């Protein structure tokens, strides 16, 4: 299926001027002018839900407004295909994988079906993630520029699954990864492409104080006292119990509240277990607020982040950590573990504080609560860091730059 520009969310580039400044937007236009009329095809596996679709929903209209001719195609497949790709996804993340020969056959057959169904005639083709990776078979001649955008952590993949996908990946002109940590040694050039947030989305847009107040009051949180918040699903890798313990250490000396807010755990048996463990650890402390939010809670999350004094992300493992990006954008001081993509966002003592233990997290929270001017400075610098590096407009610019660079290399290899 092809997602049309009308279906994708249209926000004019001009709407970003107050946030970025006119020169940055002008420069995007100047870069894009060199690519006017060029065709771009983005291919992924879902039109709705998930971070990739969210990004493409913004990226496509912006590229269109900039004078390119972008197209977004979504591959289709049966339930069996998506079960296989889910298993691949977990295996590529280093999780367990049950080897089944038919998995590879289902994967190849569905990619072949999509290869025949879709048109591949653009100058730039960007294939997102492993699900449609075998569509590189559609490249019969060395025409156009083909990129593989990998949004997942490939640092410790299951050998069998990676061994199957690798020959397809090697045929692309280049691969884009969200963090150097997530990349692998490949014979094709690899580029860094940070994930991004949209500052105008419901989760990040500026809110009226009354909206923030309404949300905070609805959850029984006292806005007149310090609020320490971690936004994440109830998952052991996010270490919610570690956050509660850090809070308890802080509470020995300072008055504050803890908010742990995350996605619904109703359809996730392990999430329910973790939530129960956290409840036990919280020991009925009225200042610990465990909020199990439904998926449509973007405004609530936005308000909770904005109401917070300090945002914590004490993960044991992390992807890029877009909740950190969101917090920094809201000028919040962040105390976060040095894992995954977090060190790229939290430059220690400049845009936040990196920690490696519960005690470290507690110490840094206390330090920030005692030094509000430092906390404010970290928050402001964090905001600038996001403005320069992790917004949707930067993502557009990065694509434009890669396209321009590839045009300067007519042999098709992005070197």
């Amino acid at each position, binding site marked *: 299926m092809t997602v049309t520009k009308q279906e994708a969310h249209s926000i004019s580039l001009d709407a970003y001027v107050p946030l970025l400044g006119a020169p940055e937007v002008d*420069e995007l236009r100047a870069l894009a002018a060199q690519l006017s009329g060029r065709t771009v095809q983005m291919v992924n596996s879902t039109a709705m839900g998930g971070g990739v679709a969210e990004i493409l929903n913004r990226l496509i209209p912006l590229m269109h407004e900039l004078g390119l001719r972008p197209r977004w195609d979504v591959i289709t497949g049966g339930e069996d295909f998506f079960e296989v790709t889910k298993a691949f996804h977990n295996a590529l993340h280093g999780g367990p994988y049950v080897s089944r020969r038919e998995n590879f056959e289902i994967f190849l057959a569905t990619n072949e079906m999509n290869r025949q169904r879709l048109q591949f005639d653009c100058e730039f083709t960007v294939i997102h993630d492993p699900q449609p990776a075998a569509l590189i078979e559609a490249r019969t001649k060395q025409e156009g520029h083909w990129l593989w955008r990998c949004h997942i952590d490939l640092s410790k993949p299951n050998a069998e699954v990676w061994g199957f996908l690798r020959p397809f990946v090697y045929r692309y002109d280049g691969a884009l990864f969200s963090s*150097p940590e997530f990349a692998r040694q490949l014979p094709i050039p690899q580029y*860094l492409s940070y994930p991004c947030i949209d500052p105008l989305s419901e989760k990040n847009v500026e809110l009226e104080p009354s909206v923030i107040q309404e949300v905070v009051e609805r959850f029984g949180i006292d806005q007149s006292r310090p609020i320490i918040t971690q936004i994440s699903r109830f998952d052991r890798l996010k270490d919610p119990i570690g956050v509660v313990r850090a809070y308890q250490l802080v509470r020995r000396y300072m008055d504050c509240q803890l908010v742990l807010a995350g996605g619904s755990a109703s359809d996730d048996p392990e999430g329910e277990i973790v939530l129960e463990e956290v409840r036990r650890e919280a020991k009925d402390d009225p200042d610990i607020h465990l909020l199990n939010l439904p998926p449509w809670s973007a405004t609530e999350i936005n308000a909770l982040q904005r109401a917070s004094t300090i945002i914590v992300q004490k993960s044991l493992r992390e992807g890029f950590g877009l909740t950190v990006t969101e917090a920094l954008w809201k000028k919040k001081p962040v105390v976060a573990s040095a894992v995954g993509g977090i060190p790229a966002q939290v430059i220690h*003592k400049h845009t936040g504080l990196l920690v490696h233990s519960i005690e470290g997290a507690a110490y840094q929270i206390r330090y920030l609560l005692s030094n509000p001017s430092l906390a404010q400075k970290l928050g402001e610098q964090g905001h600038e860091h996001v403005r320069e590096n992790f917004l949707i407009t930067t993502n557009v610019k990065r694509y*434009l730059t890669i396209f321009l660079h590839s045009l300067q290399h007519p042999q098709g290899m992005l070197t």
Partner: protein
Amino acid sequence: MKKPEHPFRFVTVSYITRIGNQSATNLGELRDGLEACSDASIFYHTFQSLGRYHFLTEGFSNEFAQWVLAALNSPMLAEQLSAPDIRAYLTLSELRTDLLSITDQYCRTYPEEVGRLAFEPFHFLESIEVTTPHTWEAWTLEEFRNWLQHLSNESFHYHFLVSRLRLALRTNDFSLWFENELGLKHLAQLTNRIDVYTNTLEGARAKLYSFIDRELAA
């Protein structure tokens, strides 16, 4: 002010970051990496990082020093690695030599620290620069000031700082044009003295506006 023979031609620059296969998990590997990495990598972690993190006006100099401080917890070496002022270098190889020599000396003095595992690895990344000429050109100082307002931070950084490597002179694109084309030596010197370590790029630009305005009012 003399009439210029050549206009100032503005350029749009943008960068993509290439992920190399080199990383360091301790001081010894950082030293080896500094020796073996490409010039594009030295550029990325020094010249370009100063632009990328221009909003950090206190205590940030380059990514090598920052990693040594935050991931190796070695403030003395971090301080030493922060010291080289990139404006003093005409080539990346000179800068590499100094960074390497500082690291090497420290490793010899404190051998027990060489193999100590860092909290997180350092990845050597490379910059790929893509430039496209703007249609804008300035024939007068007024025109220059006007177009400067439309320039992004990245392109300002390119003309103001990165140009030093391209020109291989201890000056920048703006100062060179002020002096050679407009005969404004004093403005060129003032511009060249704007400190990029203690100013954001917006701050540096504001200073440049004020120097230009003073010149125009004179």
